[in-house]
């Protein structure tokens, strides 16, 4: 709970200066900051019994930074947590992509590498030997996408990630899994 609020406050610190920003100040800047919401299909490439990804779908907050129209660095944050009877689980997702961009008319194309971590941490409060279980999923891949700029501030985009997922569960026994998956997503972005 505390951790999710801390991350939320950091994200808001990123966004809040925009509320006091004037339109002209953004025009002279080589850096363009923004925020975006994604809509992606559940990749559903893994399950360990506690994983509830399909329950809500999974939404991410994207924080893109465009540098001089040719470089896009995009951070990703996602969170899903639940407390139910004697079980609490938190699923955190972090990611970052560094993309080369090129524009044609109102469309910005980009391609580049991306890496992400999903950390699932579950706590069982009852009389169980396995009270805390943490599973970290790592994904590494190549992303390509395009966004249509309605104007300087607003865009609609789509991207495809070719990801390699890896996760290891150690719970008395060890399971190692590697998946390859294509993850399409749709997103809307607001640039300050």
């Amino acid at each position, binding site marked *: *709970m505390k951790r*999710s609020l801390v991350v*939320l406050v950091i994200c*808001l610190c990123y*966004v*809040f200066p*925009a*509320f006091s920003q004037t*339109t002209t100040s953004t025009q002279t800047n080589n850096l363009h900051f923004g*925020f*975006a*919401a*994604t*809509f992606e299909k559940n990749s559903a490439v893994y399950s360990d019994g506690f994983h509830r990804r399909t*329950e*809500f*779908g*999974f*939404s*991410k*907050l994207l924080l893109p930074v465009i540098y001089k129209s040719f470089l896009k660095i995009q951070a990703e*944050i*996602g*969170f*899903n*947590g*639940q*407390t*139910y*009877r004697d079980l609490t689980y938190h699923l955190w997702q972090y990611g970052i992509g560094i993309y080369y961009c090129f524009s044609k008319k109102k469309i910005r194309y980009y391609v580049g590498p991306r890496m992400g971590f999903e950390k699932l941490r579950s706590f069982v409060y009852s009389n169980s030997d396995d009270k805390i279980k943490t599973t970290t999923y790592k994904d590494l891949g190549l992303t390509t996408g395009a966004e249509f700029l*309605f*104007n*300087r*501030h*607003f865009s*609609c985009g789509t991207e495809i990630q070719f990801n390699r997922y890896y996760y290891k569960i150690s719970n008395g026994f060890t399971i190692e899994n590697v998946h390859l998956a294509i993850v399409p997503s749709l997103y*809307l972005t*607001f640039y*300050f």
Partner: protein
Amino acid sequence: MKKIIISLTLLTVMMFTSSQAGNIRLGIGIPLEHERDITLSDYGSSIVLHKFTIPIVFYSTIRIIPEFGYWKVTHKYDSEKVKYSVFHYGFGLYYVKSFENNRMYFGPRLVAEQLNRPKDYPNPDIISSKTDHIYGLTLGAEHLFVEHFSIGFEVQYNYYEINPLERSGYYGTRLRRVLESVFIVAFYF
């Protein structure tokens, strides 16, 4: 049904009000979001609730967005007929910053979801009505293609407080914290 009529009446009154007052703008928004199941019974039947919003913009800087959703379902088991209904209502209060024909907004959101079930439900441990709450913080933006039409999105940090269906409270209140995204298509009068 009474609640729907009240909601529609309120909406109509507000539409007339907005046409009279130049500093207030009213619209209708359709949010597109990930499906979220609402459990109706101990037999595991569930629904996906859809809703609409009524964005109200005051002086271009303050926005209130009431939201409503309603679902009623009737199950027939031989001669028995069982009716469930879910009423979703709430609002968000946001500070708005405009950039040309784009708007960005931020603020809190409060929602209640009321589940009603038949009082003579076969299982005596199942309660006949309950109200769940959703507390949230929303950051959103929209692009106005023309004066009357926009598309937008919201990133919501939501805290769900879901009360138990059972009278005994064996499973207790379920708490959920989740980051959710919503796409919105809106029409302004």
